[in-house]
């Protein structure tokens, strides 16, 4: 059994870390404080070929393996969790369905632009009354002579309004429940499409997540992704991969909290010596490091399953469940180690703590991950 990263994976980690420290870390606290989407990072991420890492070069991507992509999300999230999810939602949730289910014409129109980072993507599944129960969505798509008319609303849409391409789920046959759900590719300037006010969130404040509205929004027949009724299947398959990206985001947040804690524990002097010499602190650091290492093994294992063409639904769920809950625990301990300073904006661990919580919720709550895992274990 080989636990070593390949040369390319090691170099990608170093390069993304170097990029993140130069371009992302300096603005991370500011975009969090001001709830500002970091538009200026998008061309830089694209120039680094980070916006479509796991897609082939001819499709506009970098041609990297999935483990490398996950490492990149981890490293970006270590610097800024908002940037990590902007990239992950674009790559795993918006671009992947086009890559996997798109027709040749749809791929010609969207894939290269999305994988190369020229056009940002978003994924619109959640509705005000349909979160974990995604199949209960009430948005509809009605077929007309010249295409479909979409009606309804979606909320918590990562990357809106900056995204140019939206993967939207709506019922073409509401009577059939989840089997009546279909997926559509909607462009930002489609008539009848609009974006609401941004949410004010506890964490990942640099990531924009407003609601989007469809008011007799007209899209051509060619906007249908897959066949009519394939939408729920496409959504679930997409989320299986997306969860690994969120697991990597959680891993990066946890690592950032540990790094800050180790540095602080070595510098902070109490009782005449650095607090790193106190057993109470050492035990917390030891638990944090161990949990992060275990999370990393789960996350990389799930990504490796993708690379090797093996099923990854359960593995991805385990990775997300453990990494996200680890991130919250570790960030909490990081604040404890920092004491009163950790509760202030002077140190990054309070941001880590706020950012970590969402990883237990979006792209499938911890409870959903446990359902997926239990279904597999009890099979």
């Amino acid at each position, binding site marked *: 059994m080989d636990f070593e990263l390949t040369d390319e994976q090691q*170099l990608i980690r170093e390069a993304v870390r170097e990029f993140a420290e130069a371009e992302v870390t300096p603005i991370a606290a500011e975009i969090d404080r001001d709830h500002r989407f970091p538009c200026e990072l998008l061309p830089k991420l694209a120039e680094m070929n980070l916006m479509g890492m796991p897609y082939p*070069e001819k499709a506009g991507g*970098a041609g990297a393996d999935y483990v490398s992509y996950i490492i990149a999300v981890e490293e970006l999230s270590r610097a800024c969790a908002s940037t990590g999810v902007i990239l992950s939602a674009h790559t795993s949730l918006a671009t992947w369905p086009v890559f996997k289910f798109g027709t040749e014409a749809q791929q010609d129109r969207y894939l290269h632009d999305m994988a190369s980072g020229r056009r940002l993507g978003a994924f619109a599944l959640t509705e005000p009354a349909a979160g974990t129960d995604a199949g209960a969505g009430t948005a509809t798509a009605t077929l007309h002579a010249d295409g479909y008319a979409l009606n309804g609303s979606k909320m918590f849409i990562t990357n809106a309004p900056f995204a140019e391409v939206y993967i939207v789920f709506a019922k073409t046959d509401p009577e059939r429940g989840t089997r009546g759900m279909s997926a559509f590719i909607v462009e930002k300037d489609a008539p009848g499409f609009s974006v609401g006010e941004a949410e004010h969130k506890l964490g990942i404040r640099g990531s924009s997540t407003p609601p989007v509205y469809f008011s007799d929004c007209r899209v051509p027949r060619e906007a249908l992704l897959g066949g009519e009724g394939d939408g729920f299947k496409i959504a679930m398959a997409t989320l299986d991969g997306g969860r690994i990206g969120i697991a990597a985001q959680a891993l990066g947040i946890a690592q950032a909290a540990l790094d800050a804690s180790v540095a602080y524990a070595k510098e902070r002097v109490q009782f005449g010596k650095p607090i790193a010499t106190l057993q109470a602190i050492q035990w917390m650091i030891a638990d944090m490091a161990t949990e992060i290492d275990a999370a990393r093994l789960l996350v990389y294992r799930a990504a490796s399953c993708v690379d090797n063409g093996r099923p990854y639904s359960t593995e991805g769920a385990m990775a997300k469940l453990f990494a996200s809950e680890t991130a919250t625990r570790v960030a909490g301990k990081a604040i404890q180690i920092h004491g009163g300073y950790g509760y202030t904006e002077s140190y990054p661990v309070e941001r880590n703590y706020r950012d970590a919580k969402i990883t237990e919720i979006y792209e499938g709550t911890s409870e959903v991950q446990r359902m997926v895992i239990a279904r597999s274990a009890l099979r």
Partner: protein
Amino acid sequence: MRIVVAYKWTCDPEEATVRADGTVDWSRAKPGLSAYDPVAIEVARQLAAETGAELIGVTVGDKGVGAPLACKAALGRGLDRVVIVEDGSLADAGRSELAAVLAEVIRHIGDVDLVVTGDSSVDVAAKMVPTVLAGELGWPAVAEVTSITGQAGALRVERAIPGGVQLLEISGPAVLAASADAAAPRVPGMKDLLAAGKKPVELLELAALKVPQRNAVMTVTGQAVPERKSRKGQLIDTADPAKAAAELVSALRQAGTL
């Protein structure tokens, strides 16, 4: 035009520790490109992009300098290919020996119009190799280079001098050491790193290079480390500055410092 970048694959001193006897323990230090060499590669890469020159990386050293990871790390920065001498006998080689080997590699490559190096190596920082290499080749050497333009046989070089900048024109091949801030090293993109493993790597045998025998051999036979004095840990209360200053002066006089 053919440009060579002489780079070093070595350990970062920040990750090394100093043992009680004063010797340095490098065992836990991770190897990588010497800190200023990405600057040299970037300066050369920009010139190569303007002139269409071939960009060749060269390094010589101990076992490990030719490892696939080391080659890909250098090639990912934009080099077209690398030529490497990896030999255990070079582990403790001095600057003049390394420069002599580098000179032979450059002769082996042939038709080289320019050699660019970093400002200094991160581990030794002797700043000697560019000058000694130029001496070996019979070429001019210029340090603190901030800009290189022009083409083969007609290079225009700017270098930093105390209080200003000097402009030079060089009509033949030269060895130029880029200043530490000559260019902002570009972080390699994902495609650069993934393509690096497909670029040519030429490993040369040291014995086959016929490096001239050195007339004088220098060997480190011992070293002394200054005796570490223990601190007195004397604290002075600064509530009254005048009194504290007087107390400090008195303490320094007592210690023989003043």
